[in-house]
């Protein structure tokens, strides 16, 4: 099957807004989420957590817990040190001596909320009571919650044994920014910008159920595992248990957005208790726990930022020093230290870029990948600098962006670091976005309202959603890591009943994989959409998965679908083999349509797929032996993304396969007395190549948009002076409600990717465009009297901006 075949008129489902297969069970309250699954003899785990940001554990007393009716046992840090290995660290020396386990290790807690004791009991109530009865005494240690302080010579050490709070330190230097800064017509310098800490906070918190089968010495983990094979690998190492005796399952899964990539950590503790106490164990995370350690997004300081601009508005490049605050442990970090380089150029034709990037430990919750992982921080900075330059140098913000965008005729476009942007039409996308917000009308409104106490601001956010990682980029972080390229697997079979069964290596948590897989497979096999049954969730014991399987990094439309296409092609070959032997023709003469295999030149000669299945499963005597032994009607295939190893010395090479683009535009109204920002209009234009299901795509765009809007205006994982999280649940962490938001304007541009099997690009993360757009809109409303140098702009900050905040931190050197 070729892309031609998918776009020919016979295509019935692919590219259409097919209703989702997942929906009926979810709408009827018949889904099965992590805490839904009934398990016989189930016991419950509750963690006792540190209230201190940094402290030495002086004593642990569980005697009162032992007296609680229903108490089964507990797990203490010493026991974990004896029974487990530390989790694998990605970073090289010296920070690779970090020790990370499922309970505080080395007798020290390093962030408020770190688990210290895991308590198991026969009911939820007993587990809660027993955990509450555990007494842990601490001796506080000095703590550090600001990455800028953490790099000072006398800073408290988060990991004493490392001897520094720097987990990763790299210099990226492409082109010649020093020359550009010396010779450019203009140079803009900004002292410091801040991208704040927040997360997508999925509505279902973490949950994992662990069953240990002593007879076969096997653990089965059920819960929210977004990368099942990597989780298996981590669990196997930590538990010192053979990977072939670990099974990782996910069913319905209430959102991850990246932050659930580290479910293996609490799962380790639950597994130890399940084995020790001989009962299935479930840990159900509370919202408050999730906010403490369910995974925060990367917080980043950009310092000493310089941008070189020509008088005609051409931006040459920029340089900056990044301090990325990763919290107390590098759980998926410091991968963020290279992931941002996937989009080094952002949407622009930069020729020169120099970044010193450091990942910094602090006594705060560990960061996890979070929707837009590490790329949106960099793109926010670039977009902010474009906007600041336009304002300070007097360029029209629209024209300035248009001039510097990668232009449609430049694709495939190679960036400063060797990434290849596959396709797009940013100018068209921007024009469509501006149409959706009625840009001239908004400018008129801005003039009309001047002096009334309300100010109008118009903002543009240009961003990329880079998808399908080249995992070899991990070697830029640590040359010894054995990763390279990317794959995904798929399994398709024709069941004995003639139905089609498809299993993907991906793990959906709302993206509609059951739907999009069925669309593509049904078209390829010429069967009805309802005829394709796609397995819910994932099962690591099925051979659908590869090492990289899972849902992360915006890639399913490329890797998941391509693997499914490859597997379906194999199944088609088998079906053709059977049909041709029955219909007495060559396999190449067979086509699949209307639920049957038929002779292309003589469609009357047809064998329904049910008959194909029936013969293979129940009547193999009807087949020639060589066909019967060749055909199992089970096809497994892998898609290997076309990557090469990057040049590690130059840090140069293609790091992702596709680059979906998104342009957002918005109009805000700011109350001059309070600083309150009201969103009047919001629009987004998405270009993710050839769509498989445009309805699903638009839904993903909406979701990513609200994560960004809510982060820009409401959500902040702020820590106080004592290292305490000041937004520890949805009381103070205001996740936007329906009332906070306007209806959206939405449009799309379709620039098929030349690099993927059907021209689709990965999408869904969204690249943080609302953060860029809202910063720009607030700047537009304020003018240059204050400068928007933070991604989080609550009312108080906006009021300060109206009064000149940070104006002095931006200088036009030339």
């Amino acid at each position, binding site marked *: 099957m070729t892309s031609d075949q998918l776009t020919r008129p016979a295509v019935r489902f692919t590219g259409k*807004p097919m*209703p*989702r297969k*997942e*929906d*009926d*069970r*979810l*709408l*009827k*309250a*018949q*889904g*099965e*989420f992590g*805490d*839904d699954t*009934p398990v016989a003899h189930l016991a419950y785990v509750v963690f006792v957590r540190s209230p201190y940001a940094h402290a030495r554990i002086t004593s642990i007393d569980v005697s009162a817990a032992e007296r609680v009716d229903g108490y089964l046992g507990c797990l203490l840090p010493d026991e974990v040190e004896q029974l487990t290995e530390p989790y694998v660290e990605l970073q090289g020396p010296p920070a690779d001596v970090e020790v990370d386990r499922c309970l505080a290790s080395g007798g020290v807690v390093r962030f408020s909320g770190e688990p210290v004791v895991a308590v198991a009991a026969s009911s*939820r*109530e007993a587990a809660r009571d027993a955990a509450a009865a555990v007494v842990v005494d601490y001796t506080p240690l000095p703590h550090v919650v600001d990455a800028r302080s953490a790099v000072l010579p006398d800073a408290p050490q988060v990991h004493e044994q490392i001897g520094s709070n720097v987990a990763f330190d790299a210099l990226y230097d492409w082109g010649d920014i020093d020359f550009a800064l010396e010779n450019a017509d203009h140079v803009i310098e900004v002292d410091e910008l801040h991208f704040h800490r927040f997360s*997508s*906070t*999925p*509505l*279902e*918190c973490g949950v994992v159920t662990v069953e240990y089968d002593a007879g076969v010495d096997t653990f089965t983990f059920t819960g929210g595992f977004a990368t099942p094979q990597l989780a298996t690998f981590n669990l196997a190492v930590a538990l010192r248990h053979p990977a072939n005796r670990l099974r990782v399952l996910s069913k*319905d*899964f*209430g*959102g991850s*957005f990246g932050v659930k990539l580290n479910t293996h950590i609490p799962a380790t503790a639950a597994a130890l208790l399940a084995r020790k106490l001989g009962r299935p164990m479930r840990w*159900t995370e*509370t*919202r*408050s726990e999730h906010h403490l350690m369910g995974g925060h997004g990367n917080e980043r300081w950009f310092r000493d930022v310089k941008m070189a601009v020509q008088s005609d508005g051409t931006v040459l490049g920029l340089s900056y020093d990044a301090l990325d605050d990763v919290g107390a442990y590098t759980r998926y970090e410091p991968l963020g230290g290279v992931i941002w380089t996937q989009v080094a150029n952002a949407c622009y034709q930069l020729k020169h870029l120099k970044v010193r990037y450091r990942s910094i430990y602090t006594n705060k919750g560990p960061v996890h990948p979070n929707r837009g992982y590490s790329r949106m921080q960099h793109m926010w900075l670039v977009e902010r600098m474009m906007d600041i330059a336009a304002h300070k140098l007097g360029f029209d913000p629209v024209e300035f962006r248009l001039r510097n965008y990668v232009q449609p005729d430049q694709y495939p476009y190679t960036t400063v670091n060797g990434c290849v942007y596959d396709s797009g039409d940013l100018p068209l996308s921007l024009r469509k976005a501006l149409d959706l917000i009625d840009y001239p009308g908004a400018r008129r409104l801005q003039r009309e309202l001047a002096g009334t106490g309300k100010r109008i601001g118009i903002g543009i956010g240009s961003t990329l959603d880079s998808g399908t990682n080249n995992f070899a980029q991990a070697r830029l972080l640590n040359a010894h890591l054995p990763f390279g390229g990317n794959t995904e697997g798929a399994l398709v079979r024709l069941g004995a009943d003639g139905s089609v069964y498809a299993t993907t290596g991906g793990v959906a*948590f*709302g*993206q*509609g994989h059951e739907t999009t897989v069925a669309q593509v497979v049904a078209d390829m096999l010429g069967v009805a959409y309802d005829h394709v049954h796609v397995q819910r969730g994932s099962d690591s014991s099925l051979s659908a998965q590869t090492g990289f399987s899972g849902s992360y990094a915006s890639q399913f439309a490329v890797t998941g679908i391509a693997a499914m296409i490859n597997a379906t092609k194999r199944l088609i070959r088998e079906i053709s083999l059977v049909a041709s032997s029955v219909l007495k023709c060559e396999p190449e003469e067979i086509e699949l349509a209307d639920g049957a295999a038929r002779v292309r030149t003589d469609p009357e000669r047809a064998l329904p797929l049910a008959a194909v299945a029936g013969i293979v499963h129940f009547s193999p005597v009807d087949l020639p032996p060589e066909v019967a032994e060749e055909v199992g009607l089970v096809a497994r295939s892998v898609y290997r993304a076309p990557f090469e190893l990057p040049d590690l010395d130059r840090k140069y090479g293609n790091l992702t396969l596709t680059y979906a683009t998104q342009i957002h535009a918005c109009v805000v109204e700011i109350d001059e007395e309070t600083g309150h920002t009201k969103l009047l209009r919001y629009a987004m234009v998405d270009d993710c190549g050839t769509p498989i299901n445009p*309805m*699903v795509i*638009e*839904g*993903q765009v*909406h*979701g990513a*948009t*609200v*994560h960004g809007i809510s982060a820009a205006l409401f959500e902040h994982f702020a820590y106080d002076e004592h290292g305490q999280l000041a937004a520890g*649940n*949805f*009381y103070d962490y205001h*996740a936007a*409600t*329906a*009332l906070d*938001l306007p*209806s*959206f304007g939405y449009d799309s541009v379709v620039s098929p990717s030349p690099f993927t099997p059907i021209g689709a690009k990965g999408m869904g993360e969204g690249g943080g465009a609302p953060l860029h757009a809202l910063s720009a809109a607030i700047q537009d409303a304020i003018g240059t009297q204050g400068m928007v140098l933070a991604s989080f702009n609550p009312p108080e900050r906006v009021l300060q901006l109206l009064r000149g905040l940070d104006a002095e931190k931006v200088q036009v050197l030339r």
Partner: protein
Amino acid sequence: MTEINVIVDGKQETGAVQDRTLLVHWLRDSLDKRGPKIGCDTGNCGACTVRWDGQLVKSCMVLAVQADGGTVETAASLSEEDGSLNRLQQCFKDHHALQCGYCTSGMLMTATDFLCSGEPVTEEATRRALKGNVCRCTGYHNIVRAIRAAAEETP
């Protein structure tokens, strides 16, 4: 333990609960009702929304013992008798008003209550009606569209 008798989704249920047991836990753990979900600790997210004696409530802020003698409806009661989607559920499906599905049952309960209330189903009123239900996937746009479509289709 206290014995309680509650009609849940049309069926008389008897349970033995501790005084401290929240209604949501009894519905989920004892009755395997998967409509009410737990998404927060503080009554903000609305995932546990049910109707109790005809009133919309968050079942994480009601004790199971309080419901003794009453009637509770969860999202499992919404479908048509033949098991097909009701009008509102169908509108949610048609308008892609759910992604992961975790908030969906609570959303459906709130939307049902709103549509029954006789309030005008304007954009603003719909958004206001939903403010006690958090969704982290959809951005609400399609949920609002689905509810308004359901209102238009109501004969």
